[in-house]
């Protein structure tokens, strides 16, 4: 009896491209085209051919006459950097930027860079550092802290731009992003006050203006008491500021609770939301609303997200009011209730970061026109690359969905001679387990079994053998599957030891080829 690859079930919830005849495919959403009422809403949509966010940022910075505050985890977009350099030159300083300096770049990118783009990571880092050097040389003051994830631009306390995007070419040209341009002076000043406090007291590294970047610790300051953000009106600034203030969470819960018929959620990640105050609020909303729409980046390689998506859809197996849409590049962030009220913020629904820790920034929009425009934009993104949530799809189903081409037929997996018992058991158990997926990452010649095992293999196409050079383990994340084994069998053997003429293991592998019964 062979291992039926194609029948293996993938765990959790997967975002798979909608195919004709697929049951439960997300229907196209009727969304109005952008109009004048979207004044203030800025977006990046490839279909528009230009980045409204970039235009808004450059336009605002070019009008600066006193000071410019910018925060973005990554900052490598040349037009934006050009504008900041021009402003620093024009104002003889006065441009302050919070971004990832060299030390922070050694840690994992928080978002915006998917694992599929991992190969580009070095060049993106290089781009980022190159732009930092330009900024430093132009007289821009750079600071950073590892837990600062907000995106913000404040110009002269007169205009603020709150984008979901990091200021990188990829984010501003490729990713669907959203944002707001705010000119309400009382609100903008609050953002300025927050940035100034964070820059002065909340950063751990800096590179002062100079001919080159130079990492050092900012001078110590006497901490001042943080006064929470405040504003009365249609736009309410909110923030997650470490232990100082968590008004984003409060606003998010209020927006979700305020929904009467519809809730639209957009996020890059949703990991670990189940069982949290936010997850509970959404679960409750699913129970009482007519439609809950979630747009999320399709990160099928992240088990935490697959698990979260499966749980997200679980309460709705019968009513079918939950509609989950995947998008390979989306980075827009929104919680919108009935198109009347919305929370736009820099973080994600992922619970691990940004709700009760870290530093994020947002705006609680109570203007129906603006909230509606933000909602419509998210729904347009959902239509752009329709992907649906499939809970526990089979390998065959996943392979047939388009992106992953199947590898079919019988293959033999040869483990290196003298493989340890632990590795042998891990591989054979993984193959036996009928719900563990086996994926093959062809360009890198890596075989992945389940969520833990990564095998470096050399491919013998003629003999249909996969010769294992090294056995490694992951922590559940890592490179995405490129091709699945969708039909056929996989046998596990240990390479014959040429010195002693054969394996010394027990009867299970007394023969050169051992097939699972």
């Amino acid at each position, binding site marked *: 009896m062979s291992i039926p690859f194609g029948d293996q079930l993938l765990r959790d919830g997967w975002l798979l491209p909608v195919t004709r005849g697929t049951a439960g495919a997300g229907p196209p959403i009727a969304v109005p085209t952008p109009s004048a009422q979207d004044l203030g809403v800025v977006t990046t949509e490839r279909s528009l051919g230009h980045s409204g966010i970039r235009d808004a940022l450059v336009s605002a910075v070019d009008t600066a006459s*006193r*000071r410019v505050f910018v925060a973005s985890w990554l900052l490598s977009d040349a037009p934006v950097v050009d504008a900041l350099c021009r402003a*620093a*030159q024009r104002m*003889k*300083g*006065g441009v*302050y930027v919070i971004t990832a300096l060299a030390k922070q770049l050694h840690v994992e990118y928080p978002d915006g860079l998917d694992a599929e783009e991992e190969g580009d990571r070095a060049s993106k880092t290089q781009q980022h550092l190159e732009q930092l050097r330009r900024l430093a*040389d*132009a*007289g821009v*003051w750079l600071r950073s802290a590892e837990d600062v994830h907000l995106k913000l631009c404040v110009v002269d*306390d007169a205009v603020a731009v709150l984008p979901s995007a990091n200021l990188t070419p990829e984010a501003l040209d490729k990713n669907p992003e959203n944002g707001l341009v705010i000119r309400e*002076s*009382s609100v903008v*000043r609050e953002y*300025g*006050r927050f940035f*100034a*406090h964070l*820059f*002065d007291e909340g950063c751990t590294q800096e590179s*002062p*203006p*100079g*001919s080159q970047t130079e990492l050092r610790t900012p001078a110590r300051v006497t901490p001042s008491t943080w006064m929470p953000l405040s504003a009365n009106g249609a736009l309410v600034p909110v923030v997650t500021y470490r232990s100082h203030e968590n008004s984003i969470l409060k606003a998010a819960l209020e927006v979700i609770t305020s929904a009467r018929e519809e809730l639209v959620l957009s996020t890059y990640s949703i990991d670990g939301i189940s069982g949290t105050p936010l997850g509970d609020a959404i679960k409750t909303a699913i129970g009482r609303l007519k439609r809950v729409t979630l747009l999320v980046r399709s990160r099928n390689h992240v088990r935490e997200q697959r698990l979260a998506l499966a749980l997200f859809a679980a309460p709705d197996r019968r009513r079918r009011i939950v509609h989950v849409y995947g998008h390979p590049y989306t980075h827009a962030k929104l919680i919108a209730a009935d198109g009347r009220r919305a929370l736009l913020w820099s973080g994600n629904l992922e619970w691990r970061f940004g709700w009760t820790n870290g530093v994020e920034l947002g705006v609680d929009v109570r203007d129906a026109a603006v909230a509606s425009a933000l909602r419509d934009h998210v729904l347009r993104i959902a239509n752009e690359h329709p992907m649906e949530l499939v809970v526990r799809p089979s390998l065959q189903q996943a392979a047939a969905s388009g992106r992953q081409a199947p590898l079919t037929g019988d293959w033999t997996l040869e483990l290196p001679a003298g493989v340890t018992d632990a590795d042998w058991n891990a591989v054979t158990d993984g193959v036996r387990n009928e719900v563990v997926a086996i994926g093959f990452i062809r360009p890198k010649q890596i075989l992945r079994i389940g969520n833990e095992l990564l095998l470096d293999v050399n491919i013998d196409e003629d003999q249909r053998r996969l010769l294992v050079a090294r056995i490694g383990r992951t922590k559940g994340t890592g490179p995405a599957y490129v091709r699945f084994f969708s039909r056929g069998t996989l046998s596990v053997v240990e390479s014959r030891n040429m010195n002693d003429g054969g394996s010394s293991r027990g009867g299970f592998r007394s023969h050169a080829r051992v097939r699972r019964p």
Partner: protein
Amino acid sequence: MRPETLEDWRATAQRLLPPSEEPLAFVVRETPIVVLLATARLQREEAVSSVEHFALRLIDALGAAGPWEVCRYLGIPPRLAQGLTQHLEAVGLTARGDGTEQVPSATGPVGQDDPELRLLPRAAITARGREVLAGGRLFTTTEQPVVLEFAQDPPFFIGVGPEHLSARRGERLRPVEIAEPLEAVLDALELPPAERAVAIGIGSELPHVDGTFVGLAASRRPEFRVPKSSRGVAVCAVLVRNASSNALLWRFLVAASGAPRRHPDAFAEAVARKWGEAPDVLAVLAGSAGAHAVRRPEDGVVRVGVGLDDLRQSMRSAGKPDDLWRAVDGLSPGWSGWVRLRPVPADAGVARAAVTLRIVRALRAPSRGLKALVDEAVTELRDHWGTELETPELTSLHDELWEHPDARRAICADRYTADLLDPYRPGAAQ
């Protein structure tokens, strides 16, 4: 190593002169060495021995005494008493004269009675003998062959040469070849020690020669010779400003066969007077260097007004601007000279630009705010140049300094509070 360049002499001066003496000008040349073979008259000082002392005391007490009295009263052997009295007379401590034949009345002698000694003459103590009796010391004048080394031009004493030079076959100079400076040496050797030191550098003492140098003995005609293997001597007159006395002084450095050494200052001044023939040698030197100079009495440094390009050369580092050394023209043949000049701004515009430049240099490693750096730069340059200097407005400085990448950090630091803190203080205007 013998100094040859300006830098060599500056290093030599730094080593030989006290830190409080800052060189302002150097005048140097190479000149041949000549040796003077002569006999020196030397005065030597000796301690009087105990027996001499008692003999003098006896003679003084008796009024006059001869060997017999010395023998009988001091109890020393007859031959010793005879030799002793002859020596005292020979060195002028006793002398025969009126009354010396009188037989003294004294207490009973204790020594040997040698009848022959009675026949020998008596002598009385002299005035010099009484001085020696009071001081216990005896001065004598002797003659000794010496080899004195001199620089030829300018003629001055270098030192006492090794004795073998006198035996070596040197080139005897014919009388007509003795140059005027060397004749001056012979004349100067007749001068009293103080004047002689000023004239040719020989005072009362000769190195490695015991005794006070009195002059040349007439018993031998002095003759000059030129050592065949000599490289000559490098001489250097250094004009310094003494910080403690605030005076301009000349120092004289000489490099012959050994390490360079400092020579007596009096001779240096004399040499300088000969060069200068003017009340302000430094001004003359500076003028010869092409500088339309102004010398400030406080530090003696010659200022010369220059444009920004020249000024930039002196401000290569963030520290105090450097002075320039410029070669002096028009000195006597064989002489070279350099004078230290301090470039100062030719006008207010140059001064302002130089202040900016100085601040930029300091900003490369800023440790304070821009205002403190500006104040420091202005104060330092004002003192250094000795000119009035206005402190520029910070705002206008921002515009000028921004083009320098190193300055941007300080400018940004200057506006940090105004940008990030002041606008958000409670009650701040929105």
